[in-house]
């Protein structure tokens, strides 16, 4: 070989295991993607319910982020509020309260979600139930007067029963039209009313491959099927599946809550079954349960089954023919 040229510096060589290249995806990016996908629904909520809605969202996010920072500081852990996961929990929690909810309740709920449901178990990735939903159920049991009954009506200062409560017969009122349900011109909690805005966000997440389509498809499909079969007053197959899909928190839950990575199955088949299970329990509660809406409880209950779904839906291993233990 020819005379050696100036040998470049090789004194900073990193010796690490393969693979030596990594995809650009990070936890932070994923979380912020979900927050971005929630912006249309948040905007619609502010439009329909006014500045009050924005205040509650900010309170939820601030409380969640602050709680995360304080707990991590107290536990002498690295403070990871920049990853967006606490902010996402706070936002989703605010989406689950009506516009006339007191701000302190949202603050306490967000703190509960982060401190009790998430950080007690070790932080991101360790909790077994969805923090926002567990906190919602906590608020519902703690202050039912603020979480049920008559909710503010969009662009108005009066309150009314939610469509699902009317549908169930536990409250009286006129059912809004499909169009109003679709664009969100109905009473309800902040984030759930506009099916359109939520579908835009959900489609964005599926397009960006942030969430698996199986969970929402299984969830919404099961609700549609079962409410069509059992939801009608005039016998089997007289239900109104479209109304059941558009009303209540189904679309919010199916796209943004049931798809929470940490608390849903890790296998594709498991996620489909998870969605179907959520749909089944939702219909059970909506038609025969003690509440007009069952989406959040259905997801919480299915969260408990996740370890088993993971076990039972292991993919087939290449070259292995016998069933796995």
């Amino acid at each position, binding site marked *: 070989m020819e005379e050696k*040229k100036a040998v470049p510096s090789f004194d900073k060589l990193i010796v690490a295991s393969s693979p030596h290249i990594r995809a650009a995806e990070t936890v932070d990016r994923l979380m912020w993607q979900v927050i971005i996908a929630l912006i249309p629904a948040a905007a619609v909520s502010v439009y329909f319910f006014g500045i009050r809605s924005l205040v509650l969202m900010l309170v939820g996010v601030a409380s969640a982020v602050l709680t995360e920072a304080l707990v991590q500081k107290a536990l002498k852990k690295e403070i990871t509020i920049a990853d967006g996961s606490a902010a996402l929990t706070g936002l989703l929690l605010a989406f689950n309260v009506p516009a006339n909810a007191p701000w302190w309740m949202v603050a306490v709920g967000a703190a509960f979600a982060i401190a009790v449901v998430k950080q007690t178990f070790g932080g991101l990735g360790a909790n077994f139930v969805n923090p926002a939903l567990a906190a919602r159920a906590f608020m519902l049991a703690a202050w039912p007067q603020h979480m049920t009954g008559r909710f503010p009506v969009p662009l108005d200062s009066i309150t009314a029963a939610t469509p699902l409560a009317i549908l169930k017969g536990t409250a009286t009122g006129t059912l809004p039209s499909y169009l109003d349900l679709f664009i969100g011109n109905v009473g309800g909690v902040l984030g759930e009313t506009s099916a359109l805005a939520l579908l835009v966000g959900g489609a964005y997440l599926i397009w960006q491959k942030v969430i698996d389509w199986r969970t929402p498809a299984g969830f919404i499909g099961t609700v549609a099927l079962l409410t069509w079969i059992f939801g009608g007053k005039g016998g089997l197959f007289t239900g109104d599946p479209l109304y059941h899909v558009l009303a209540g928190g189904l679309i919010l839950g199916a796209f943004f809550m049931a798809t929470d990575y940490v608390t*849903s199955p*890790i296998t594709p088949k498991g996620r489909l079954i998870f969605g179907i299970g959520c749909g089944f329990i939702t219909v059970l509660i909506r038609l025969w349960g003690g509440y007009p809406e069952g989406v959040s409880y259905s997801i919480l209950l299915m969260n408990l089954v996740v370890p088993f779904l993971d076990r039972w839906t292991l*993919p087939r*291993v*290449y070259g292995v023919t016998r069933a*796995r233990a």
Partner: protein
Amino acid sequence: MELRTFVGGVHPAPSKERTAGSPIQAAPLPRRVVIPLAQGGAPCDPLVNKGDAVLVGQKIGESKAFVSAPVHASISGKVVGIETCLLPTGREAPAVIIEGDGTDTWIDSTGRKLEELSPESLKALIREAGLVGMGGAMFPTHVKVSPPPGKSFDSVIINGAECEPFLTCDQRLMVEEPEKIILGLKAWLKVTGAKRGYIGIENNKPEAISALKRAAADEKDIEVVPLRTKYPQGSEKQLIKAILGREVPSGGLPVDAGALVQNVGTTYALATALETGRPLVERVVTVTGTPVKNPQNLRVRIGTLVSDLLSYCGVEGEVGKIISGGPMMGIALPTADVPVIKGTSGILLLTIEEATTLPERACIRCGRCVDACPIGLIPTFLDQFCRKEMWDLAEDYHVQDCIECGSCAYVCPSKRHLVPALRLGKAEVLARRRRK
């Protein structure tokens, strides 16, 4: 038509554009080579002593063990020592060090016609030529083509997938030497008695596909199979699944699926040995990466130091990693003072920024590793089990079937170091099985 492929896998950026179009050039003859005596199977005993004069192609190391391939001098000159050296695999082994005389004098050799050779003499020729798997594994080829009793090959697959990003050495060989690849494949068919030959090539290498299709136009037993571009398409198990639709049983060998998979470089080396009678003393190496000034595919004598290659190609700026092989499964070298060996398909340099990884975070159970695993494992569970040394659970979840392809770690948004954990668990489980 739907392109054939396998389940799972990932799509890293191919990053091949800097060398894909550059024809193979001969690297300058090295003045000094370091030829490790262990390059495939059991280590060889040296056949030369310090001070001996050697010619190119002269056998300098051999072992009595069946699972071992001989090594040959890659330059002519004088043996100046037999010393322990560091291999690109990270292990240390004794090596014959030769100072070149600059004359490049070869041993006498004559080519053979494939038709004249019986399968047995072909197998002997393969062994004498020192052929090993040149994709990186370096398993002695004469062993690989000898099926265990009661088993046989019905198909031979040439692995032209070259799914590792950056590497283009196989691609260039297929484009430039398609006839020799076909000759090599016919030799594989003859030595194994297999009926069908396939050449699997990812469809992002249309030049290679058309070149080989042309060369194989008259061969009715040989089929060129375009494959979907997806990593790790070039893994033996995934290639067999994609082309033959069969699976290698867990814990088994490709022969259990009736298939022999051969690397393009090995096939080319076999054709060379047939035509010229010369053993394996050089190979094509892709030298590339952002810090490399003139990235190219080089025909390199075995034993050439990586530092010499890098001086030849030129390096700019600070280097963060020197990788022997591709970025997905290659090995990061602690120094550039290691020789190119028979399994070195590429030398990839990364800048400090490229080589610096984000800190590891807790698993968020996103399931991307599950979707990516071409074997159907749950890498993140295995990662947890192996880190907690729960070997029974790791075995129940089939850690021993991991092919260490790195797809899981590539996609992980938490940047978890899945491969070392799984590699450890795999070694532990296999060791425990042997003890039983």
